[in-house]
């Protein structure tokens, strides 16, 4: 295996630390560019990468043309940074001016100079006394949000922490739930209209999850939207008596925002316990897309992707706001490649389905009637019946963000090809323990020996435009650029550049020190475009991947940030 080291970080370490301790004055002098609401609204065209999926629409698309299909092969490593933590790295490097912020497993934040890689400060959330009992899919963090002069972090022990962007000092912190009793946070927060908005995980532990908006300046709670309604509220009658209290419905991936309709979109995860037999009903708003009033969290409409789910088909994939033309009609849409293996285009004005197409083998959700999905009830497990169905609970796609390119009008979708066996099992609710009621094993799709792919879907037809197959699962997010290049990383540890139109591989980085499960980001400082990616294998696949686990068990662990540019 080739592992690239442009320079040894280890040797530079003491120097970097020394520089960091001496540097604050210099850093301050350079000045941190304030992140205003106006800048966030225009994040799509900012030179930095100001939020999780770059802009409120969630496109993961940058209008930069410097790196293009012709010269991308000349990309070189400019700097790198190694972290000592060995768990998974799922964070997007966030960039404002020449400040970069990355997060590591277990909630560390590191601020670096985006051009030189010099460490400016580090913050480590103290997790002393926290057992990390109720974190299903690795002790990951997906990055920070920015607003004003602050950097926001959501933690595994359910704190939202505001840090000063120049010093890393805590401005305020607020715990929205105790640790270890079913709730945890792994997502990148969203800053919107002076609020910090986060969502809780816990669909495997009998949590009753929620999305919460805090005042960005003080941490004061402004609204809380439970994703599982109590009796007497909209959807409350879709649960058997009392079951809503442990109904799951996690909200563990950052939402998106549409200014034209003033709507906040947020995905909701699976119901608890997993075994649907135990909770007759539609189980709203699990596996759904919520369209919310951003000021109150009130529900405008919802769309349920998987009714009465028994397969852990979290509907938390990033809902991307885009316009499309389907059968001659123009739509203002929100699109998403769902865990259940279907790619959905939904009218974002009213929540009506425009179309849904399979993007991988999908049998549990069998089809659509009047714009609503129906399931194959023969594929529902019971205590005595084992089923075989597709995709596995890891999904046709897991959380890895898709990218939507307005020029090609394609969605680039990280994909896994899996099926599973699943059977009911006894379960009981106990705070701190999983609440599943099923056993399972992830296996190959019988018709596809590859575990993964990155594919392009034509937004106007739902048809596949190109497909890059991979023997190993494709567990990393995608990013597209105006230079006609799509970037995404592989489990083997190569950052790939694809031709956005054809899927041809234009460039592949040397093998990095670990596999990639994070999305890349790109930014421009002093007229030069950079591409940043965190390598650091881990996440859900090596834990829950069943038959897939063996294929990835030799991937080296460890976190490493790499920044590339043209010479």
């Amino acid at each position, binding site marked *: 295996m080739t592992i690239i080291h442009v320079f040894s970080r280890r040797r530079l370490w003491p120097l970097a630390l020394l520089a960091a301790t001496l540097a604050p004055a210099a850093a301050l002098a350079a000045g941190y560019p304030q992140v205003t609401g106006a800048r966030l609204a225009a994040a799509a065209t900012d030179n930095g990468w100001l939020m999780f999926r770059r802009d409120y629409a969630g496109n993961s698309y940058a209008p930069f043309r410097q790196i293009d299909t012709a010269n991308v092969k000349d990309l070189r490593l400019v700097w790198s940074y190694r972290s000592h933590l060995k768990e998974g790295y799922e964070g997007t490097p966030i960039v404002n001016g020449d400040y970069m912020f990355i997060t590591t497993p277990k909630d560390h934040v590191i601020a670096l100079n985006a051009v030189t890689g010099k460490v400016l400060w580090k913050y480590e959330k103290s997790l002393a006394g926290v*057992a990390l*009992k109720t974190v299903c899919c690795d002790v990951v963090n997906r990055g920070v949000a920015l607003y004003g002069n602050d950097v926001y972090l959501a933690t595994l022990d359910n704190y939202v922490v505001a840090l000063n962007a120049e010093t890393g000092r805590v401005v305020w912190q607020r715990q929205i739930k105790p640790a270890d009793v079913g709730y945890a946070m792994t997502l990148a927060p969203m800053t919107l209209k002076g609020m910090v908005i986060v969502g809780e995980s816990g669909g495997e532990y009998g949590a009753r999850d929620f999305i919460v908006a805090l005042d960005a300046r003080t941490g004061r709670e402004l609204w809380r939207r439970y994703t599982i309604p109590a009796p007497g509220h909209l959807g409350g009658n879709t649960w058997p008596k009392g079951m809503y209290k442990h109904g799951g419905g996690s909200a563990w991936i950052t939402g998106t925002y549409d200014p034209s309709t003033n709507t906040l979109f947020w995905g909701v995860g699976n119901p608890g316990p997993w075994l649907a037999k135990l909770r007759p009903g539609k189980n709203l708003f699990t596996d759904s897309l919520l369209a919310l009033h951003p000021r109150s969290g009130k529900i405008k409409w919802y769309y349920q992707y998987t009714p009465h789910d028994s397969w852990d088909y979290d509907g938390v994939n990033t809902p991307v706001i885009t316009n499309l033309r389907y059968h001659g009609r123009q739509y203002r849409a929100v699109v998403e490649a769902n865990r259940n293996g279907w790619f959905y285009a939904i009218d974002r004005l009213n929540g009506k389905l425009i179309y849904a197409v399979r993007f991988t083998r999908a049998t549990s959700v069998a089809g659509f009637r009047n714009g609503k999905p129906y399931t194959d009830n023969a594929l529902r497990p019971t205590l005595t019946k084992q089923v075989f169905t597709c995709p596995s609970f890891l999904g046709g796609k897991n959380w890895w963000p898709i990218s939507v390119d307005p020029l090609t009008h394609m969605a680039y979708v990280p994909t896994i090809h899996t099926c599973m066996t699943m059977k009911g099992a*006894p379960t009981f609710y106990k705070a*701190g323990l*999983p609440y*599943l009621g099923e*056993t399972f*094993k992830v296996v190959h799709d019988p018709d596809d020996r590859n575990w993964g792919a990155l594919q392009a879907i034509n937004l106007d037809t739902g048809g596949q435009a190109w497909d890059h197959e991979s023997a190993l699962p494709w567990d990393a997010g995608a990013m597209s650029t105006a230079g006609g290049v799509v970037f995404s990383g592989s489990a083997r540890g190569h950052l790939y550049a694809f031709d956005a139109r054809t899927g041809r591989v234009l460039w592949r980085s040397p093998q990095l020190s670990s596999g990639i499960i994070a999305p890349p980001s790109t930014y421009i400082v002093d007229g030069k475009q950079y591409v940043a990616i965190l390598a650091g294998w881990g996440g859900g696949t090596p*834990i829950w991947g069943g038959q897939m686990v063996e294929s990835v068990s030799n991937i080296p662990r460890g976190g490493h940030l790499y920044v590339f540019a043209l010479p």
Partner: protein
Amino acid sequence: MRTRGLALALSILLAALGVQRGEAAGAPALFAAAQARAGRAVFEHKCAMCHGRRLQGLSGPALKGPLFASRKAGYTVRDIFLFLSVNMPAYAPGSLSAEQYVSVMSFLLQQNGFPAGRVALTAQAAATSTVALRYHGPAGRRGQHDRRASDCAAPGARAPSAGRTAPRRCKPLAAGAAGSARRVDAARSRPGAPERLR
């Protein structure tokens, strides 16, 4: 050095109070030593990659120590056994034999300071045991355990300090839904004496 001196003083004090080594821990013997040995092998092959060779926790949580087997978490042996024998290892839940699950449970008990005894743990016993799963100090050194590990207090006991919740009152453990298995009250059982859970 200082801590060792302190520990020594503490053990003299405890001895003076008639608290014998191990007794304060109140951990009943629930498994045979050979089971814990077999359980270690199972653990290393099937669990360590996620929970750590020293059970310290990696992508999966720690399975040893005061954070895992805490009063706050309130687990019983039954809770943990039923969970792990159905849901672990995560990549292939339920895939081990009953014997392997019982031995890995024995290993977890041993690692959390429970003593081995003469009678082997059975799947039935593990699945019905309401013994509180508490950390009783490092395996094999139960004398110096964490006193807070006991899950209830005698009537009239005060909360240890301001801000901490008072320990639950001790009461005889009620026979639960699981039926006929004999309940073992952790506080009453003699250390080292094998408890027959049926």
